[in-house]
């Protein structure tokens, strides 16, 4: 088991290196000249000499390989360069926005998990019952309402009409609820369906029926033989969504004026702020890799066979 974990962690390194290479390559391939972008961002009409000087300062006149190695060394020191727009280090900018993003991510994931597990599980257990129909309705709504509209609806009803929650901004837990629910809605739709389907599938397994004949308590059967296994596809989905949420829920952040990651990145693209784009892409790669690692470890806990060698049927 230990070796499996270690192996899994080590595989992250080459994948991350590949991500840096790709980012570096794409930025070099793009028609944007960083020096030009720098002066545009600063609203300075640059002369050719000024451009030349800036290129030298950025190290753009050096061979590509050396540029790449230099960039790599800096990345290892969490130095992603300085933003052209704000003239602050990119890492500082990112970390100042990270808490808000993490708050939103955790809030919406928690809501999604807390709502979809009981509903999905009960819907699977009691197929075609009232709760099953309710789950179908909920998934239908969640999958089809666009989040910007849902966000405005929430603001209109809960903030403007009922005055229960603040309209925009951050601070207290009350600020967090509306954006989290808005983000969680499509996730709830997805997870409820996933869980329901796999609960239904696992209930059909012969060992579940056999456990009943052997007189095992229903609670243990449901927990150990059904839910624990049925939850596995949902966790895979969660891992993927965790990455998406962390790297910015751009629309929801815009609707609720949430000072997160996503908006910052969009602005950077419009300003052709190369260091920010680079830093963001690498950070996103890192987040996706870690969330997938976490998911794999959870899966290993659920199904211990994953880490075992010597399986009879491959």
């Amino acid at each position, binding site marked *: 088991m230990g070796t499996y974990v270690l192996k899994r962690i080590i595989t992250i390194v080459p994948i991350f290196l590949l991500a840096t290479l790709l980012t570096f390559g794409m930025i070099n391939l793009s028609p944007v000249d960083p020096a030009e972008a720098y002066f545009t961002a600063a609203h300075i009409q640059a002369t050719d000499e000024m451009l030349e000087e800036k290129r030298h300062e950025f190290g753009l006149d050096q061979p590509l390989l050396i540029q790449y190695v230099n960039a790599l060394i800096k990345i290892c020191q969490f130095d992603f360069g300085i933003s052209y727009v704000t003239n602050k280090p990119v890492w500082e900018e990112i970390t100042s926005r990270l808490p808000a993003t993490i708050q939103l991510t955790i809030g919406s994931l928690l809501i999604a998990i807390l709502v979809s597990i009981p509903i999905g599980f009960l819907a699977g257990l009691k197929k075609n019952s009232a709760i099953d129909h309710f789950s179908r309705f909920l998934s239908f709504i969640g999958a089809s309402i666009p989040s910007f509209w849902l966000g405005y609806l929430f603001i209109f009803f809960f903030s403007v009409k009922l005055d229960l929650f603040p309209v925009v901004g951050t601070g207290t837990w009350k600020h967090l609820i509306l954006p989290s629910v808005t983000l969680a809605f499509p996730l709830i739709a997805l997870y409820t369906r996933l869980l329901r389907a796999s609960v239904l599938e696992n209930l059909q397994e*012969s060992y579940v029926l056999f456990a009943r*004949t*052997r007189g095992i308590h229903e609670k*243990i059967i449901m927990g150990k*033989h059904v839910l624990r296994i049925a939850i596995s596809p949902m966790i895979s989905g969660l891992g993927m969504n965790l990455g998406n949420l962390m790297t910015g829920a751009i629309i929801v952040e815009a609707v609720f004026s949430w000072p997160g990651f996503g908006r910052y990145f969009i602005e950077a693209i419009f300003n052709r702020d190369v260091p920010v784009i680079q830093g963001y892409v690498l950070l996103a790669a890192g987040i996706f890799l870690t969330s997938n690692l976490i998911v794999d470890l959870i899966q290993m806990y659920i199904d211990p*066979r994953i880490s075992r060698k*010597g399986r009879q049927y491959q």
Partner: protein
Amino acid sequence: MSLLEVKQVNHSYDSKKLFKWKNQSNKILIDISFVIEEGTCLGLIGTSGAGKSTLGKVILGIQPPQEGQVLFQGNDIYKADKLTRLKLRRDLQVVFQDSYSSVNPRMTAEQIISEPLENYEKLTVGEQRRRVIELLERVGLNENDLKKFPHQFSGGQLQRINIARAIALKPKLIVLDESVSSLDMVTQSLILQLLSELKDDFGLSYLFITHDIKAAFSISDQIGVLEKGELIELYDSKDQFFSSKHPIVKQLRDSILAEHPRFRTLTTKAN
């Protein structure tokens, strides 16, 4: 009081048609009655589709019969309240044909065998492990197999684990539904030997459901022949079976392959 009493069980699977006038019902079990006394083994033989497995399910309490009663230790298992039923279940265990699908593939041998113990007895961790090792050794496996998963065992070994799980609570009756049918000859005879040892050691009773007449004879005290849902004959000894004049029994008897081709009779014609 007999251990298990099956009284006039009738069961049929209705094939539901859209139009009612063509309502057919497939009679699976017709007026089945028999008794299993404590410490004995009843072998039920029959061709496939004779209703053997349905009868097994009815006795196990997962397929309520349309008519009739199943009395286990004097209690009707379909009418007993929840608590009595749990108690009855403890004394009525089962080993199925497919050893792989009877266990959760994500659990180790230790977890599989200790599950009934956790369910019915509150033991300390050490005590429980000791019991599991004892059971493993009883069925011819050892301590090294504790942490293995089902896919790391062979079919025969896994069936031993299923047997260990079934005897963990020292039940009164074990239903063996084609339990040895999918195993090779050598493993089969080893498991049959193990089963008859366990029967003597713990005073177990078996309901041995099989299509394999030889296997049934090696372990059973009584033999019942099931054909098209009817229990046509019930014998107390091997000799009775071999001297029976019943055409179906004759057919079954002739299907046993003689030890030497010279002794084979070709009385049964292929259908």
